[in-house]
């Protein structure tokens, strides 16, 4: 394996780690706001690191730019969606509690 391949493995694994952490946070965190926090980390850092890993495999500058475009679009979408969900929850006065969630996983 070449140095570029090793770089892909390292960054890809690091990205997967953040996705794992984000998923764990989504499942285990107590309220909506901390879950959103966990999820957006997966989108921002996890996807970002995977894109960096894939950049080492890109054949041309155009492919690399497309990868970066995908990441920036995902950043825009995930942070805006997070904002919209959080705002909606605040309007319904679900203030952050810090307590165990009562809405369960049934």
């Amino acid at each position, binding site marked *: 394996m070449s140095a570029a391949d090793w770089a892909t493995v390292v960054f890809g694994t690091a990205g997967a780690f953040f996705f794992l952490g984000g998923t764990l946070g989504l499942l285990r965190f107590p309220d909506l706001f901390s879950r959103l926090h966990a999820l957006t980390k997966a989108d921002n850092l996890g996807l970002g690191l995977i894109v960096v890993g894939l950049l080492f495999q890109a054949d041309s500058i155009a492919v690399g730019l497309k990868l970066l475009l995908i990441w920036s*679009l995902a950043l*825009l979408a995930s942070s*805006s969606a997070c*904002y*919209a969900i959080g*705002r909606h929850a605040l309007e319904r006065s679900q203030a952050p509690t810090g307590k165990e969630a009562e809405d369960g996983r*049934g």
Partner: protein
Amino acid sequence: MAGADILFDLLLAAFLVLLAWRALAAPQLYQAAIFFIAFGLAMALAWTRMGAPDVALAEAAIGAGLLGVLLIDSLAAFTRGRRSGEAKTKADSPADGPAKVRRMPRAPIVFAFAAGIVFTAAWTIAVLRMPDGGGLTAAADAAMGESGVAHPVTAVLLNFRGYDTWLEVGVLLLAMLGIFCAVGKTGFERERRPGDTDPLINWLVRALVPLMVLVSGYILWLGKTAPGGAFQSGVILGAAGILLRIAGFRAFGLLPVWAWKAGLVFGFAVFLAIGTAALPAGRAFLEYPAETAGAWILIVEAACALSIGFTLLAFFVCLNAASERGAGGEGEHRTMN
């Protein structure tokens, strides 16, 4: 690496069955909808693994994206309707839980599952026994030169089997007519809706919608040489429209109703017109002149993409307006089913 590939494919297949099962068996409709969306995304991944990126794109965009929006929107309408009903009658079901599905009896599910496994096994044996390169692959490859495009999927969809695609666009139109019959032509009024005044959402829509229109055109153009084409392009257009609609942008209400109707039938009509135009010259129905086939295909695809975008958007507009009206005037909407 072949071993890793097979392991991944097996995991993916098992995951698909699990998601399908959970979507059917989920105790709450909301969960079922989310599982259905996840199923659509996993299915798109499966299509990619099978080397069919065209289908994967369509599955992700329609199966997971658009259908997900429609499902969750309808679900919100159900829940609203149920809550307003409860407020009047003080029903004894738990007040806050989303609508519940009745549990299905076990025996038919087990039977259907067993039948599915037998069918899959028979199907697998049949596929494995098929001769290599069987079917029409060779014939399609041989005719690529006169198809007018370089991407085989587009050649089959728009040229060799244009009839199928034309009728598919017709099916979308029929579905739209069905919705018109069921809930009425509603939601297309030229008033300004209250909409979202939030600066961040406003900015996002202003930034994303032009980009989506651009990507839609790019995907349409790309269909000549690579995965892409009318359907994928149309779905992106429709999604841009839904975004405008949800955010309550004024641009949305500027179209008069006749323009909506024209947009809905445009693709079907253009396809039909170009297909029949060559009939007097002795060509078959939907046959393009070989020298200019590429240009005709692009025209047909552009028209279809526009109509598909319009139709998918109209699905959402119509159903959304109907559900909002239903929530406003309590209980009236029940008669419309």
